[in-house]
């Protein structure tokens, strides 16, 4: 992977989203939660879209979700990913509500298949997954998901 090109694709770390990235580094999925109505949101935003409250806290989410859908990218759109095609992307509905784009850890890591994960194989709609955290080239830790058994469960 072209590490310099990849670094440019990463979101800037700002005062407002820093708790999310600190969570990733600590192996936790942290989401903003409205202090007034309790709605979770991702990415970070200045107000709650439900009640417009500006007041929110950062909470550790369960990391659980389900696969809403997926696709496999064959086209080379990003220089950073030119050597990776084809690669599979997933769209995960988090147990707390938000939907996120991600990848399956086992698609790039065959050892995950040994623990019961699905390696480059058929996925099912609404298949349960859980968040895992892997450092990427350049060192930033980003959330990925696994279809295998969650640690500690």
């Amino acid at each position, binding site marked *: 992977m072209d590490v310099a090109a*990849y670094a440019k*694709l*990463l*979101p*800037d770390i700002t005062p407002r989203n820093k708790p999310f990235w600190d969570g990733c580094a600590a192996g936790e999925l942290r989401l903003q939660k409205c202090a007034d109505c309790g709605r979770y949101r*991702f*990415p970070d935003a200045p107000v709650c879209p439900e009640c417009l409250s500006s007041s929110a806290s950062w909470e550790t989410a369960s990391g659980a979700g389900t696969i*809403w*859908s*997926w*696709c*496999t*990218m*064959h*086209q080379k*759109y*990003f220089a*950073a*990913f030119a050597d*990776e095609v*084809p*690669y599979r*992307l997933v*769209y995960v509905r988090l147990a707390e509500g938000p*939907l*996120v*784009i*991600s*990848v399956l850890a086992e698609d790039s890591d065959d050892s995950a298949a040994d623990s019961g994960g699905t390696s480059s194989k058929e996925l*099912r*709609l609404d298949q349960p997954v859980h968040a895992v955290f892997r450092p*990427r080239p350049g060192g930033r830790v*980003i959330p990925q998901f696994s279809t295998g058994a969650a640690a500690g469960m």
Partner: protein
Amino acid sequence: MAMKDVAIVGVGSSDFRRLYADKSQPNDVYQLAAEAFRDALDDCGATQQDIDGLICTNIKYGQFGETVGLTGPGFVHDLEGTGRMAGISLQEACALVRSGMADMVACVYATNGRTAGTKYGGGDADPAGAYDAMYGMTSTGAYVSMMYQRYQAMYGAPDDALAPLAINNRANGARNPIAVFQKEIDHDEYLSSRFIAEPLRLLDYCIINDGAVAFIVTSLDRARDMRKKPVRVAATAGKAELSRSYISPDFYFETSVAVADRLYQAAGIGPDQIDCMQVYDNFLPTILFTLEGFGHAPRGGSWEWIRDGWIELGGKRPLNTSGGHTSESYMQGFAFHVEAVRQLRGEAGDRQVENCNTVQYMCVSPIVTSHIFVAD
């Protein structure tokens, strides 16, 4: 009080085939726009002095107005260069005419997306989009492919479910002298088309090209004194479904149903009375979502419905008679408006729908819009 009736009286569009053939240097969007505008004026027998409302999409009214000597309109507005704006553009023109804010409105669109190398994926991500780009996720087509993957799994649509749409668009393109692609394709050619964002193939994608489209809108009363038979806007409706993702969890179904209900009620015309459909097809699955949301085909069953002889020329509801965005050219919805007018006037040549009295435009996107046009 009855609302003032509104009509499209003039249309103009580029020769998309000629433009596609030459990408040696970037085309000037203002030249393309000016030529389409001139053609639209000629088409209805109007001049710049008749135009008192100007709605530009993907170009700027200031430079356009100066280029074509339209320097004193009573109302101007620039719309962003996205496909969802085609329907909005006509809706705004109708609202201006109905309210009396303007008497005759020009809607003008131009792009040089092909020769200028515009990227529809992999470009600079916006702040929210960076959370997708960091995984290599980009391009509207990839988001549509995820909706389609889920649709296929939910409703059992096979690998070749979109083939009838790809084949139909090409068959129609073969009858349209300005279409970029005029060679018909068969089922095997469809299935051998390479994947872009699997499950979507190259033949499921619109054709990025250069070109321009213009149409002129005025009151039906005034339209009847102009050069050609007016095409009345029987009704138009729209509803947004805004989020940071292009993915709608129900494939825009509920939003489309809401638009359809208002549209059919206002027009007093239902899907059974539509003679010809112009369906926004940035990517072919969008047509399935549209047919279902607008009540033309059963929910989850449009992929079977399109195999039953409805959509071809000669069928009960011919679809994308110009070849659509995958064969004529990707003009972000605008050229469908021109095709609707040409069909209703009987000007569509080899691809003319017989006894064509009603045409429906539909665009399923983060702003769902639809119009019903009728021959006056």
